[in-house]
């Protein structure tokens, strides 16, 4: 973070949770992501009122209501744009965006590209479960081509989207992958993501136990990435292109300067603009 407020001692993860009971199914990975986010904020000891959690639509996009920070649950696909306006005008706030794979990569795909490119200082946490859960089980951009569903019988036949490769190619400054089954590890990734200036992208594998029961097996497949984080974009590209989607950890961290408008340089009153019109 470039402009974090002074940390407050004595805050715990619980201080960042609201009293609202999540709508998620029992066993949903998103519960652990909520834990990871609140643990990360407690680790950073950010005052809850200085944190804003912004989301779109979907199961994981319900996140803001479950937190004791400021929040905005907007429309489907536009969360990063909403967050961009907030952060650009309020650089003093810590801005997190939370959402799912359909919200971020399908309907919101264009904003994802441009958020990476614009590199505003915020952290985007995508809970990827390779399915639309809220609408009861349709394939998303990250779903395998042969996954059968009522909307796409026999599968879509389409190659899955590779979010981390897209993030790297589009200019994200921090790219990591976590797993909901490891909330402490995910919390550490989120701490680093928030601390790294610029646009940080954290994909969290977060199983949908209702529509993708097969994802219960993820806990046996995921593994820490066998390599250290790299600042070399070419190396990161090669690593991500050969990645099977289950390597966890920080996969790229750059040093690009964040984009930030200057809204604090008050020089003149509107009346000063009038001379340009005077005959």
């Amino acid at each position, binding site marked *: 973070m470039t402009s974090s407020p002074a940390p407050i001692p004595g805050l715990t993860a619980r201080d960042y949770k609201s009293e*609202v009971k999540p709508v998620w199914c029992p066993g949903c990975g998103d519960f652990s992501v909520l834990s990871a986010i609140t643990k990360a904020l407690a680790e950073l000891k950010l*005052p*809850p*009122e*200085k944190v*804003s*959690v*912004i989301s779109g639509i979907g199961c994981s996009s*319900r996140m*803001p*209501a479950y*937190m*004791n*920070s*400021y*929040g*905005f*649950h*907007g*429309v489907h*696909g*536009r969360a990063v*744009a*909403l*967050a*961009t*306006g*907030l*952060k*650009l*005008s*309020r650089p*003093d*706030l810590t801005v997190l965006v939370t959402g799912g794979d359909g919200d971020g990569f399908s309907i919101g795909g*264009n*904003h994802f*590209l*441009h958020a990476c490119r614009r590199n505003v200082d915020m952290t985007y946490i995508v809970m990827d479960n390779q399915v639309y859960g809220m609408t009861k089980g349709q394939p998303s951009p990250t779903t395998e081509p042969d996954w059968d569903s009522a909307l796409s019988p026999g599968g879509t036949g389409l190659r899955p989207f590779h979010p981390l490769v897209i993030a790297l190619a589009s200019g994200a400054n921090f790219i990591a992958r976590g797993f909901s089954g490891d909330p402490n590890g995910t919390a550490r990734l989120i701490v680093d993501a928030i601390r790294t200036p610029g646009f940080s992208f954290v994909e969290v594998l977060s199983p949908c136990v209702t529509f993708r029961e097969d994802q219960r097996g993820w806990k046996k497949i995921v593994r820490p990435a066998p390599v250290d984080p790299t600042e070399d974009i070419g190396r990161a590209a090669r690593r991500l292109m050969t990645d099977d989607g289950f390597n966890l950890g920080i996969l790229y961290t750059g040093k690009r300067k964040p984009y930030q*408008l*200057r*809204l*604090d*340089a*008050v*020089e*003149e*009153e*509107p*009346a*000063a*603009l*009038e001379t340009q*019109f*005077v*005959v």
Partner: protein
Amino acid sequence: MTAKDDETPSLSIALTGSGGAGVITAGNMLLEAAAKAGCYGLFARSSGPQIRGGEAAAMVRLAKEPVAAPGDVFDILIAIDWHNIDRFAVELPLSTESLVIADPSQGELPEVIAASGARIAELPLKDLAKTVAKGRPNMIALGVVAGLIGLPDEVADEVMARALKKRGDEALAASRDAFALGVEAAGTMSFDGPDLWTRAATRERWIINGNEAAGLGAVRGGVRFVAAYPITPATDLLEWMALNLQRLGGALVQAEDELASINMIIGASYGGTPALTATSGPGLALMSESLGLAVASEVPVVVVDVMRGGPSTGIPTKSEQSDLNIALFGLHGDAPHLVLAPTSVSDCVFTTQWAVTLAEALQSPAIVLSDQLLGQTRAIVDRPTDIAFVSQRVTADAGAGEVRRYALAGGGVSPMAIPGAPGAQYTADGLEHDERGLPSSRAGDHVTQLDKRAAKLDGFDYGNHWAEIEGDGRRAVVAWGSSTGAVREALARLGSRGHEFRLVSPRLLAPAQPARWTEALEGVERALVVELNHSAQFYRYLKGYCDPPCPVDVYHRPGPLPLRVGELVAEIEKWSRS
């Protein structure tokens, strides 16, 4: 054409030429010089579809009194060449009293010009320009116009000096010489126009276009954040904001599309910064879903829609008043919001400032319906008054105990906590919610929140700003937006013939104001709506939502050609006999 007794004394002048001929430069200089000489006036341009270059027409109208519509016919048309004249001749109406000045080296007089019966004067503009070192035909043309209309020499010289300051002494000398040749040539032509130069300006005058005026109104209203995607004819408003916001501690961000720009301004406004975007019809369509979010989450934002011909890509460079329906009804669900329309170029300042104020005070999105005619016409106007509005956003104080973001008390306007305020955290939501902002699908919460959002707009006292009401006739003409200027002048012309009409031009289109309409039309036997669209959108809205107390008729047609005063005089006269 010299002014008839009942017409506003004015002169309409067109300069045409292909790309690079400099007719737009000359037109702007003519307007500026006339302003310095105490005139009111308008400058509009017509360009071809080419990205750069291409033929262009500079259309200037000068008058002793403020004018807000193009003249009926052009008194002077000076053509540097006739490139693609067939395309825009329809925008350059001529009469037998018009004077057309043509360069014989540019070929035969086009049929479409000859057919007007206008008087023709030949002048070898190109060859004359060659007699001056670095001389250009457009400055000769400017000199000809100045000579014909009696523009005082010193103001023309002052404007040339200012316009050419950066190009150096040589360029200025060449322009002065070319201008002088033009003035001399004008001496050989006969032209009888009104004398417009007798009145010195007593009040400060500005030259401003509607896009700049809307920008100024926005910053006067407190806007300091703009997110936007380029679109004709709103781009120059955005460019003005990008440059000028910097001086005020504000900024503009170029978004990846209109879906992003509307969400960015909602995000900024949620964070406490008054925010605006400007667009045209296609962009407004893309923004509609998120405007509903601003309604539901009660976040103030302002969208200026500089309307153009539609639907779809339509006619991007020409005006039309055809986005009223989408502005009023484009949001899904029951989504009350504000829709306003400026009544003139200069009123773009006031109406946009008022829109920002209302949006902030009522925590509501506001759509301002400007259009290409207002936005891109440069007008000489009296300095627009600076109004100090008192209404502002009601925010929740930090530490005031439990904050119910969407509390029902207070006439529907509930204090808005701004991120950073401790103890007041809440989640703004597009989901239906309860008073605390928690998602709710309960029938009771839905009804009370719908009632709340409607009540805050319906219960607000908009005062006299809601409309301009002039005159006292038993017949009323209702115009909105850019049509107001042409209607006002038409009614003045009819007034001098002894026909009295009332003019009602509403600034506040939504929420509908039936009680105010009843008052505005009290004693009126019959009203006529005038608007520039194909489906009589305002007429249907007025009848359906505003309960007019008298029978209402309509005169409407689509763009791209602007409404002309003579056209409206004829239509209103015909209607008044019905």
